[in-house]
């Protein structure tokens, strides 16, 4: 009886509380998101819309359909730029996935915890040298005159800086820079993901006669494949955006490397050397599409991003 009575009292009270929260919280909600929403529109939504507007019009603001896209795609520098990025992406993604997963597995199951923690930290340090600093560091590493591994460069028949900066070598060079700055962080993330696999699972695999390699291949890697997918898509999306690396190498190579190695550089040249903002916008839209597809895949295909609370 008493129980029933208390229930009767609490239910309406709770309902009133929720209703109150909906109303009051709602108004506060608008206030609290106002600043961010402003930024989101000013630097997310509006520029996207503006890029599309420019890409579909000419310099007089007249609608030109797909003309801008066709025009930039026919530009003699367009296909090479996208081809360069494609080669780079394949190299970078394969290296990234193979080496980060492999080293995370090794650090998790083949090395003592203290060594593992130290190694993870040391691998992670170059992450602080992102951007221009990392390119400068690699300019030194690749200059046979000063490089600590000049013997290696010489062994590969690259005796001068010019020989290192051959156009064919660029995808490898950018891959090295990207791996050097980015892989350490991913190794840490992969290690964290492997850590969530319970010891019983690993033990069970060992009881079934699986060696360490077999366990890694059939148990650990399948269990973190969501993370591998996450890393791949993010690395893909950011890899399409190369700008600072080729731009700096272009400077340092005294023009031996073209100004339009990557699509972003090409857009830059369209906008700032040719004053062709519509063409630049069309290239940006191409890149936006690639970025959006990768983002969309990540949001829809993985259950890693949740929109609703428990």
């Amino acid at each position, binding site marked *: 009886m008493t129980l029933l009575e208390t229930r009767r009292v609490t239910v309406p009270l709770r309902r009133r*509380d929720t209703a*109150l*929260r*909906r109303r*009051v919280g709602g108004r506060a*909600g608008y206030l*609290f*998101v106002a*600043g*961010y*929403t402003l930024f*989101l529109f000013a*630097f*997310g939504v*509006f*520029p*996207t819309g503006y*890029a599309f507007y420019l890409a579909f019009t000419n310099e007089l603001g007249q609608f030109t359909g797909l003309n801008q896209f066709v025009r930039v795609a026919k530009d003699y520098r367009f296909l090479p730029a996208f081809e360069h990025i494609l080669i780079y992406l394949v190299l970078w993604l394969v290296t990234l996935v193979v*080496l980060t997963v492999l*080293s995370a597995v090794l650090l998790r199951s083949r090395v003592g915890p203290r060594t593992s923690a130290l*190694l993870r930290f*040391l*691998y992670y*340090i*170059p992450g602080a*040298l*992102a*951007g*221009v*600093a990392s390119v*400068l*560091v*690699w*300019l*030194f590493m690749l200059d046979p005159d*000063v490089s*600590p591994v000049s013997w290696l460069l010489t062994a590969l028949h690259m005796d001068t800086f010019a020989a290192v900066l051959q156009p064919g070598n660029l995808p490898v060079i950018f891959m090295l820079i990207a791996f*050097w700055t980015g892989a*350490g962080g991913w190794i*840490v993330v992969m290690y*964290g993901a492997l850590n969530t696999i319970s010891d019983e699972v690993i033990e069970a695999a*060992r009881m079934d006669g699986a060696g360490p390699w077999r366990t890694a291949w059939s148990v650990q890697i399948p269990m973190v494949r969501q993370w591998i997918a*996450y890393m791949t898509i993010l690395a893909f*999306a*950011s890899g399409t955006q190369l*700008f*600072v690396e080729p731009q700096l190498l272009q*400077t*340092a190579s005294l023009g031996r490397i073209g100004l339009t190695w990557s699509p*972003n550089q090409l857009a830059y040249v369209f906008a*700032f050397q040719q004053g062709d903002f519509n063409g630049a*916008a069309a290239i*940006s839209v191409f890149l936006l599409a690639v970025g959006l597809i*990768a983002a*969309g895949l*990540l*949001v829809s295909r993985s259950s890693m991003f949740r*929109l609703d*609370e*428990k």
Partner: protein
Amino acid sequence: MTVHVAARRPRTGRSPGHVVSALVVGALLAALLVFFVLPVAWVLMAPSKTAGQIVHDSPLSFGSFSQIGAAWRHLFAFQNHAMLTWLGNSVIYAGASLVLTLITSVTAGYALALTRFRGRRALLVITLVTMIMPSATLVLPVFLELNRFHLIGTVWSVILPFSFFPFGVYLMYIYFAGSLPRDLLSAARMDGCTEWQLFSRIALPLAKPVIGLVAFFSFVGNWNNFFLPYLVLPNSDEFPLQVGLNQLLTSTPSFNPVAGAGLDITIPELALAVIVAICPVLALFLFSQRTLVSGMLAGATKE
């Protein structure tokens, strides 16, 4: 069973297969170690030597402290202390946008997680998509927009775009949605707390570690950003450090014999500039390593 396993392990430990496998593991991890650490060690040593010593001495040797002083003087004398100007600019740009980022992303994450309003879901979806798109995607459109509104060359053309940080909003949202006890909020509400008091007295103090994480990512990202300031700031005295480094590079005789002739900017000075540029980030890295790792995982998982 346990006995059987225990008895087997030492035997497999001595088998040739195991030795080879251990060697492969060791070699791979050591190779990675050299790859990641050697360039850092080289850069740390380089400013202590003269340009000549860098070429002739062994790569990881230490030159002298006086040489570091000389490199320091050359570097800071470059274009009338341009390094100091750039450093100051970087601090202003990254600092101001850090403040704006924190104000907007903490409140937005809180509102998205704990209040209900129309358009909330749409806001979340747009946030997710922009968060995953690489920031460079939008740099050129943002430039065109800023150009249209005549903001190019002003500090706002860097600070405002830097302050847009959807990843921070998402991190705050995840934290508030998953870890802030709702009962606590309801109880406080019953006691007559206003929405603002709930936020400032309960949610904010509890969220300190995540706020620190957002601050870290925002600061590091903006500090290292090159593309946007490179486009929107035409004058050297407005450059942040990253764009300044690019100018320094073009003034170096080893990379640009024509423009660099007669200047004291050689490889030791460049290496020193790299160290100066990364110092704030490196310091933050060392201090917040542990929180970072858990944060990177928290940023994308279900708890």
